[in-house]
């Protein structure tokens, strides 16, 4: 278990280094980062001064060392737009994004897992058909479109929910629903297929041959095995939701990291974009690490083998 955790931690650190390198190279791959970051109408003198100020005229390895040592203490430079350090601005937006992704994931889990379980235990039933239909819709409806339709219907026509912002307790419901819907679809399908697969396993036949009650077999023998693939998908999806809510946050004017990213791209605010990219990667890596640990807790084969 310890070795497993340490190796996973090592992998995460290595990946984070890769992300840092990638972000560093991306800005410089087009040639002149100063030209990229400055407004198009800036004079050559201004660009030169900016280049000097940012240290872009120094050798690349030296720049990278600077970048790296800054990254370690959380310093990604000042936002060009706000002239204040970039990372604290990202952190200030974190609660809103976590709330959005958390509520969205919760909705997906609360609806998706029961639907998938019922579907897996009674394939072909009415609940199964409804669940599969919802899963298909959830995964195929473009959610920027759904977001607009929902605003039109539930906010403008019916007035049930606010159409934008994060000012009321129910502001989160529409964006979280839209964000969670594809995940809900995936959870339904995965749970259903996992239940179907586990039910056909030899060890379920063994459990039956022991004369156990069906309820015992489902809860004890099936569900724990179903949880294994489910945990990993939920982890991946949560990471995706935290990092991938850019257009949903923009449409609903949700003051989270996604909205900040959309704005900072518009402002050509590279230090801010970098800080967001690296921070989001860090969050995803942390969630993956947590998922790996949860995985090991559920599955003894992982816990003991490594």
């Amino acid at each position, binding site marked *: 278990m310890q070795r497993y955790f340490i190796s996973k931690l090592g992998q995460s650190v290595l990946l984070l280094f890769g992300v840092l390198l990638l972000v560093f190279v991306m800005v410089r791959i087009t040639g002149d980062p100063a030209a990229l970051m400055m407004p198009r109408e800036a004079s050559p003198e201004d660009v030169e001064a900016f280049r000097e100020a940012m240290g872009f005229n120094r050798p690349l390895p030296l720049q990278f060392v600077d970048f790296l040592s800054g990254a370690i203490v959380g310093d990604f430079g000042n936002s060009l737009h706000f002239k204040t350090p970039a990372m604290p601005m990202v952190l200030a937006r974190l609660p809103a994004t976590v709330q959005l992704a958390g509520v969205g994931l919760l909705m997906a889990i609360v609806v998706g897992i029961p639907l998938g379980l019922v579907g897996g235990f009674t394939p072909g039933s009415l609940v199964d058909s409804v669940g599969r239909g919802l899963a298909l819709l959830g995964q195929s409806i473009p959610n920027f479109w759904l977001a607009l339709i929902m605003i039109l219907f539930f906010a403008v026509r019916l007035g049930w929910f606010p159409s934008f912002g994060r000012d009321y307790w129910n502001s989160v419901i529409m964006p979280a629903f839209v964000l969670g819907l594809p995940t809900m679809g995936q959870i339904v399908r995965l749970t259903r297929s996992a239940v179907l697969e586990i039910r056909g396993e030899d060890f379920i036949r063994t459990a039956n*041959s022991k*004369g*156990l009650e069906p309820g015992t077999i489902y809860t*004890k023998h099936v569900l724990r*095995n179903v949880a294994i693939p489910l945990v990993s998908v939920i982890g991946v999806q949560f990471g995706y939701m935290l990092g991938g809510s850019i257009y949903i946050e923009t449409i609903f004017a949700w003051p989270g990291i996604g909205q900040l990213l959309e704005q900072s791209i518009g402002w050509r605010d590279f230090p801010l974009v970098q800080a967001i990219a690296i921070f989001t990667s860090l969050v995803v890596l942390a969630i993956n690490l947590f998922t790996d640990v949860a995985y090991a807790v559920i599955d003894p084969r992982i816990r003991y*083998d490594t």
Partner: protein
Amino acid sequence: MTTILQVENLVTRFYTLDGVVYAVNGVSFNLQKGETLAIVGESGSGKSVTMMSILGLIPIPPGKIESGEAGLLLDDPPRDLLRLSPPELRRVRGGRIGFVFQDPISSLNPVLTIGEQITESLTKHLGLSREKAKAQTIKLLGYVGISDPELRYKNYPHQFSGGMRQRVMIAIAIACSPEIVIADEPTTALDVTIQAQIVELFQRLQKEMGMAIIWITHDLGVVAGIADRVLVMYGGRVAEVALVDDLYELPQHPYTVGLLGALPRLDATDTKRLVSIQGTPPDLLVPLNHCPFAKRCEYAFERCRAEIPALRPVGAGHRVACFYDLQKGKPRHD
């Protein structure tokens, strides 16, 4: 000799998308107290499905038990297993009849400790408390030859070797001292040396606990060593049933003869090719109105292609489903 299980005319079919699979087509046999009955046949001959049907372990649907009886004569009055309610049947399974399956790797739940997988049977059937069930489980583990049973109790299946896992499966099967243990190819997935150990373990347990064993296999070598009687199945029917010595000495069914002829012999002095039975097993999707072996049988004549042979006695406890008399070299007369 007391008959403890009497199966009559069992018919099981599977209704699949490809059509109806005629898996078991009227199988009858009995099991005596404390004996070992080997059920032999190639893949798809209906060996496993027969046993699963008796205990309601086939998936329904697509499976369906069309007709038959499976009398558990131990009970007074005898009960028909095929007509028990699901809760009654669950009390028989695991409690009165234990199972050992072929593949001990996939037959144990990977996320539960083996201790848990044995105790759940004890608490269900014997009504033991958790502590008592644990103590009993540790005793059982030692009994089937697992060293350090107290430590191993907490281990998971993947921490055991194949042979040890099969011992755990056997411990599950015998946990509630059943009268019958059904072993579905229990040695097929194991190394030869481990196979011998498992066979010995079964023999010791049978001697000490006195249960009857139904040993499903296609390994005729194991059969000769362990069985009292042998039931040969072909195409979902019984081809021949006999005491083990009679079967090896005087096989009466051409299929049995073919099976025995296909065995490699250690005492063969000249180099000969291994004989195999020509042709392929019958397509179970087609209902047959003739002997299922007729197409592969060198002795087949018109009647074999027109009628289904019934089991007929040809000696003490020896019955065969064949129209041809191998001893006399001509068709039998009814």
